[in-house]
């Protein structure tokens, strides 16, 4: 692996760190395995690139993609809290619907924005996405140490007792899913702008990549506080990208780029099985 490939991995790792952070909010904080993210990642990319080719300011385009993602997250939340549809299924339903919506938004299966002005301007992707990641970590740490944020966490830990302390668990879930999917859509928007295109199938497997990053980060940092957990998401995401690049580079193993999903799924499965073997 050369330095260029390393930088490329860090770059993508930083953008996908936002995916890991989004997954952390749904999966860990409110204990909701949310598959919507596969659709919202693409949604973020679709909204941002469609607006950019319509000559909208890239910053506004990016903000709109966050908003669209949050809305999609709330749809999943609404299906779950209002109509008691199983969380997994609610996510799959929204994700499926988003496939059509994303095609509508883009008007065609892919959009190229390589010539257009992006949020990165003339800056390096690594610097801009580092700043974005840091801003979100600071905001989230502050949020989750507030009275409101603590209530969000409490509702994920013990919904029944939360209720008896006056916490509206349904609202907290809606909020967390909106935040989670908004952040994932932002990742999609940044990814599209850094790579110069949006594609209808770019979100496939987002949940597993997010989960893999989260699990790797947690294994490395053993986080106890929210801030360490968020940093673990970033580190996990970058390590994941470097590991993938190394595996694909090692010609002797004979892996090719299309094996990525298989490796990722195996990685997540093994990391989830290992702790259970230890407890035997």
């Amino acid at each position: 692996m050369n330095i260029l490939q390393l930088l490329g991995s860090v770059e993508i790792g930083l953008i996908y760190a936002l995916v890991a952070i989004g997954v952390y909010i749904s999966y860990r904080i409110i204990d909701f395995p949310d598959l919507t993210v596969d659709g919202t990642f693409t949604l973020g990319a679709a909204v941002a690139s469609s607006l950019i080719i319509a000559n909208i300011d890239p910053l506004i385009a990016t903000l709109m993609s966050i908003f669209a993602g949050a809305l999609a997250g709330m749809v999943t939340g609404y299906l779950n809290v209002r109509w008691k549809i199983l969380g997994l299924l609610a996510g799959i339903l929204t994700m499926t619907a988003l496939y059509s919506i994303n095609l509508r938004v883009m008007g065609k299966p892919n959009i190229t924005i390589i010539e257009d002005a992006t949020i990165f301007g003339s800056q390096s992707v690594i610097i801009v996405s580092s700043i974005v990641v840091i801003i979100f970590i600071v905001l989230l740490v502050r949020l989750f140490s507030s009275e409101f944020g603590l209530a969000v966490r409490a509702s994920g830990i013990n919904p029944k007792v939360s209720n008896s302390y006056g916490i509206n668990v349904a609202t907290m879930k809606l909020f967390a899913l909106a935040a989670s999917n908004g952040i994932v859509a932002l990742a999609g928007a940044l990814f599209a702008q850094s790579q110069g295109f949006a594609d209808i199938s770019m979100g496939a497997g987002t949940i597993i990549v997010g989960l893999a990053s989260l699990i790797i980060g947690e294994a490395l940092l053993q986080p106890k506080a929210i801030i360490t957990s968020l940093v673990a998401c970033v580190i996990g995401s970058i390590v994941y990208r470097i590991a993938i690049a190394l595996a694909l580079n090692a010609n002797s193993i004979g892996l090719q780029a299309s094996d990525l999903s298989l490796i990722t799924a195996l990685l997540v499965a093994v990391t989830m099985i290992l702790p259970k073997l230890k407890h035997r």
Partner: protein
Amino acid sequence: MIELQNIHVIFNKGTRLENHVLKGIDLKVEEGEFVTIIGGNGAGKSTLMNILAGDITPNKGKINIDGNDITKLPTYKRANLIARIFQDPMLGTFADLTIEENLSLACRRGKSRRINLALNSNLREHFKSALAEVGIGLERRLKDKVSLLSGGQRQALSLVMATMQDSKILLLDEHTAALDPKIAKSILEMTAKVVKNHKLTAIMITHSMTQALEYGNRTIMMYHGKINKDMNSEERALLSPDNLLKFFDL
């Protein structure tokens, strides 16, 4: 004053599994009363608790607290009026949060939760003195996760959490049933002390005749969804736990 008027609860209404759990409960609890409730399994004690807490809406009847009808309010909307300690110590608190975070949540029971920081040095001082009241050293462990505490310690913490915010009534749902006799005794002593110091109105379910007569100032016995005995302190004073047991054979 807490007032239950003709409360009926029927589970699985209209099916073969229909179960008429509460059959017209009328109950008035005055401010400052500490009521103990006894009754066999299936008598409807826990359902009565859940009705008050809001986890179950009665099929018929009304619940008033200080003249306000709360019958239809969901649990989270009546949390400002009701404090509750659960039976299972492992499930009654937020295990993955620290002691101080648990207390901070309890501090805002029934209030709006803002984006202010949930913890600060003033609050921590307040928590320390509140924890010192139960005297088991929790005030030195503010930053420990609740998952590190024993069942007894968690129930003591629950008790302190219940007093962090005013309430019209404190519901104690067999809150010592899962503890060993010695710890149960000390939690009950703690409960009696806290109820007295904070002048709380409380309802406690218990399976122990001795506890029912020893604590509180009024005892209610339930049988098959009805209240079949309601004893004030004078009447209770004449009874021994063995006498009380006889009523179970009614």
